[in-house]
């Protein structure tokens, strides 16, 4: 009786062990024969990147850029915007060349049409996205080129840097990596990338002429060209009825800020925020 019980247990254990061993053997053989050679350089390069997979470099994610860099050493190695200086430094060590970091940029919402500054044109009850609202007469705000406030930008932001500040999207410069995904998502192109060392911004995107712009928003640029005429570097140009700052020319004198009759040009300090 005991013997047959013992045999039954032994057979069960034996079969299980045999199947387990067989499976292990198959996997070992498969791992040996079908092993894929991974380029070590590619792995090292990949390890340098922050892994945000934002696509700011123009390749399909960090893996794509690492592969391209490993295969083609002539490729510029400073395309990673979110990685900034630390990535550039690590990359330089791996590739054996000195890599200048891409100039850090931050996304900025060029609109200050908060609930206090502008009115709603109608009560929008459709799909709660900016793209959806934009389809109905250019959006529910009085200004058709300002921030719509439904957060399409916040949805695509990989670092959760965008929040809604009283009806207008606001980018936290400390969290922003400058990948530019929000700028692509905004149907009104209100969000644009500007250098992180910029000190002055135009907080309006209104393309209407002065009289209409004044009615639409208390913060609007009316295109009076006061700033353009005053700027001694020629950095400000009024195009499409609102001021644009060319940051390659701006020397950060901040004089235009006090000059603006609408207080649309504002002082910012992204460095302090970090």
């Amino acid at each position: 009786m005991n013997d047959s019980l013992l045999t039954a247990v032994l057979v069960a254990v034996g079969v299980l062990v045999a199947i387990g061993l067989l499976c292990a053997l198959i996997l070992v053989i498969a791992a040996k024969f079908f092993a894929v050679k991974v380029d070590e350089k590619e792995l090292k390069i990949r390890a340098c990147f922050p892994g945000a997979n934002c696509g700011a470099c123009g390749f399909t994610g960090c893996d794509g850029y690492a592969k391209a860099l490993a295969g083609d050493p002539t490729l510029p190695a400073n395309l990673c915007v979110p990685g900034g200086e630390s990535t550039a430094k690590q990359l330089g060590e791996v590739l054996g060349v000195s890599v200048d970091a891409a100039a850090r940029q931050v996304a900025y919402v060029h609109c200050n049409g908060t609930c206090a500054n502008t009115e709603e044109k109608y009560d929008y009850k459709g799909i709660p996205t900016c793209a959806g609202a934009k389809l109905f007469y250019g959006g529910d705000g009085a200004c058709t080129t300002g921030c719509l406030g439904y957060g399409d930008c916040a949805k695509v932001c990989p670092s959760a840097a965008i929040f809604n500040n009283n009806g207008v999207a606001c980018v936290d410069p400390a969290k922003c990596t400058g990948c530019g995904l929000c700028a692509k998502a905004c149907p009104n192109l209100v969000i644009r990338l500007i250098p992180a060392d910029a000190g002055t911004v135009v907080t309006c995107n209104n393309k209407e002429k002065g009289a209409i712009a004044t009615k639409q928003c208390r913060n609007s640029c009316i295109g009076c060209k006061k700033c353009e005429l005053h700027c001694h570097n020629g950095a400000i140009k009024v195009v499409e009825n609102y001021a644009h700052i060319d940051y390659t020319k701006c020397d950060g004198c901040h004089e235009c800020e006090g000059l603006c009759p609408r207080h649309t040009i504002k002082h910012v300090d992204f460095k302090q925020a970090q």
Partner: protein
Amino acid sequence: MDTLKALLVILMSSVLVNNYVLNKFLGICPFLGVSKKLDQAAGMGTAVTFVMLVATAVTWPIQTFVLDKLGLGYLQTIVFILVIATLVQFVEIILKKYIPALHKSLGVYLPLITTNCAVLGVTINNIKDGYNFLEAMVSSLGCGLGFLLAMVLFAGVRSRLDSANIPESFKGLPVTLAAASIVSMSFMGFAGVVDKLFA
């Protein structure tokens, strides 16, 4: 002709009537987890179908020619888990070597399938229902297609949920579960249809 009809009944009943996700509530984890986007849902569904087929092709002979012969039917669960886990790993290695594009698009889903109870459920139920090898394979195909169908349907439902105006407390998982139960109820309509379909 009769065999063909029997196979068709097995296929249709496993796709619609005995849908693994919506009727037997197996494989709920990927059903809720990977159904946010249509392409991902379809990828996962295809991968599960493939693994179900291969798993049945391996486990059916093991049950019939090894376990039953030795009177070790009670080892079914543990042996099947062992074999399926190995199998998925093996498939992953092969895919990585020969079809890297497919391997990349399947991504994390393949290892996920290793522990998918729907796959284990299909293989065990095939034995329990006393299917022969061909019937078991057809049944696995049907179950896989049923899983794919459920995933794709639910991905469509979820994309509509995204743009719906949902009460704050229902947002996220609660409304997803409620939607899943409604989709599941709609599949109850298929009960009893299949037997008459090929009569």
